[in-house]
């Protein structure tokens, strides 16, 4: 090549550039095969990408990011209002406003709608398009697949639940005239809202994925879930107030949107502004926790059983 270029330069001709394309043919893979854990991790990562619409068209990103934005916006507004109240009316005025313990009861319905819309994306499309068959002929089992998908959506829902709380905490501490003093007084709110976020997300994820596991159509699953959460609220509240007493307390337990909120209240040590009037909060803490576990673990077991039995 160098000789050609030199000769071309000496002769005054433009240099001739030559190249060769080599067909390297088929190369067998001789590297490491990382086994089942790599398979599970791949399905988990893919679940996160689906939930957030990554690697898909723009429309796939609209709904998940809209709801994450709404949740964050609520946290931001609460932080701004609390900061303003603190500056105008002092710490006593700020204490009267909704805070970490109240956030989940305010945002619960949005978290549930987020789960109702996004969870079917993770499951229905794979079954409807037949892609699930390609997973099941690999080292994964149906149980591995659903566990990885569940973990992926739990991660997203936990992040969506925590993000506004982190914004709220930062806003409250920065808005306080003595941020270090605020941190010293309220540091326990951090593990509380983290734990409560997991409680909310585990329930929303499991129930939403269970419903999505029984239909091929995402719209059916989403509408059914939203209806389930929205319709049970007025129905159970009306029945509970009509009947009253112990029976009313138990009827109010069937308000699906409130089931995790009883445990959230226990974590924060007091009922939130929105749950304090619900009859069920007067039931023993053990009953409320067992009720929550029943509504989370049983759907989880049914979900696992459903996928364990799947075969191409």
């Amino acid at each position: 090549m160098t000789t050609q270029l030199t000769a071309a330069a000496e002769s005054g001709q433009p240099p001739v550039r030559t190249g060769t394309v080599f067909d390297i043919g088929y190369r067998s893979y001789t590297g490491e095969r990382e086994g089942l854990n790599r398979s599970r991790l791949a399905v988990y990562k893919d679940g996160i990408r689906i939930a957030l619409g990554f690697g898909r068209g723009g429309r796939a990103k609209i709904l998940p990011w809209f709801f994450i934005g709404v949740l964050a916006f609520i946290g931001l507004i609460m932080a701004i209002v609390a900061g303003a109240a603190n500056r105008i009316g002092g710490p006593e005025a700020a204490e009267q406003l909704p805070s970490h313990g109240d956030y989940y009861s305010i945002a619960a319905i949005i978290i549930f709608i987020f789960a109702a819309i996004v969870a079917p994306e993770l499951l229905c499309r794979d079954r409807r398009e037949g892609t699930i068959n390609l997973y099941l002929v690999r080292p994964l089992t149906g149980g591995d697949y659903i566990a990885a998908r569940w973990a992926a959506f739990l991660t997203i829902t936990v992040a969506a639940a925590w993000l506004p709380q982190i914004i709220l905490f930062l806003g409250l501490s920065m808005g306080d005239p003595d941020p270090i003093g605020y941190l010293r007084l309220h540091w326990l709110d951090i593990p509380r809202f983290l734990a409560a976020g997991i409680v909310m997300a585990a329930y929303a994820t499991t129930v939403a994925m269970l419903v999505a596991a029984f239909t091929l159509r995402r719209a059916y699953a989403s509408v059914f879930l939203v209806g389930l959460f929205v319709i049970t609220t007025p129905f159970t509240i009306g029945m509970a107030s009509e009947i009253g007493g112990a029976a009313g307390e138990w009827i109010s337990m069937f308000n699906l949107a409130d089931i995790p909120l009883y445990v959230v209240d226990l974590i924060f040590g007091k009922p939130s502004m929105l749950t304090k009037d619900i009859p069920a909060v007067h039931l023993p803490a053990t009953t409320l926790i067992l009720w929550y576990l029943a509504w989370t673990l049983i759907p989880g077991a049914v979900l696992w059983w459903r996928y364990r039995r799947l075969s191409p």
Partner: protein
Amino acid sequence: MMPNGEPLLSASTLTKRYGAVTALDGVSFDIHDGITGILGENGAGKSTAIKIFLGLVKPTSGEATVLGRNAHENAGVRARLGYMPEHDCLPSQVSAAEFLTHMAEVSGLPPTFARTRAADTLRHTGLFEERYRAIGGYSTGMKQRVKLGQALVHDPAFVFLDEPTAGLDPIGREEMLDLVRKTHREFGISVLLSSHLMADVERTCDRIVVLQGGRLVEAGDVGSFRKETETIFIEVDTNLDPLVAALGRRGISATPDAGGLLIEGRDESIYDGVRDALVEAEAPLRRLAPRRRALTELFERDREPDREPAGNGAVGAA
């Protein structure tokens, strides 16, 4: 090829019943290195056999091993197997490059190698230029190539192809069969091709396993099937009856079929006899050609009441 000469796939008195329905009935065969066709009509038991080999279905009795292991008890062996299903199985929203990378990771490859393998596989299957387009916008032929690609992306030792030419036009079908041949001859991956199309199997496979009603009909080299199925077909413009009589006088029996005559036989003396009979009967010849027996006829032979089904078969180069 297994290092000790053992078969890649082995079925031993394999039986699968779904309630009262017997999908596989005591089937035994071995499959070695190469391209093997598994042939049968709908409901013959092809898909059940593949599912048992992949470990997705447990046999009622008998044993199936793949690469020396029982995939039902050891799902890890599936990391070295590929499967291309007959039906739709591709996500519409993602690109071929992203999908194959993901499938390679699901098969256990580290992410960096998965990306490289996906690009290489798409190049070999002829989709390199289109790899960043969403699969939903692909033609049927391109989707079949993606299906084949996902079965090969993790460099399996053995790949199951279930009706790979389904839905393809003649050109697409020929290209797909070329890819199947390339899969073994250039990539070194052994293939079990399931089909109900005799022509596909004849043109692509070295060996063949024929199932009918859950039972093994035949197993062996494709060449031996060709020999058995050769028949001479004669079509004349007139004088068909005098021709039959002239053939009969030469000891050649002819069966009327589709306006012509079918003559069983494959040696030169049959051709000489036909020539002489045509001259004697003054029958203007329109067509004389070897005729291959249709797949259905191969199965009809098994339905004959006095014929015993094949008990077992060893297929492939040991």
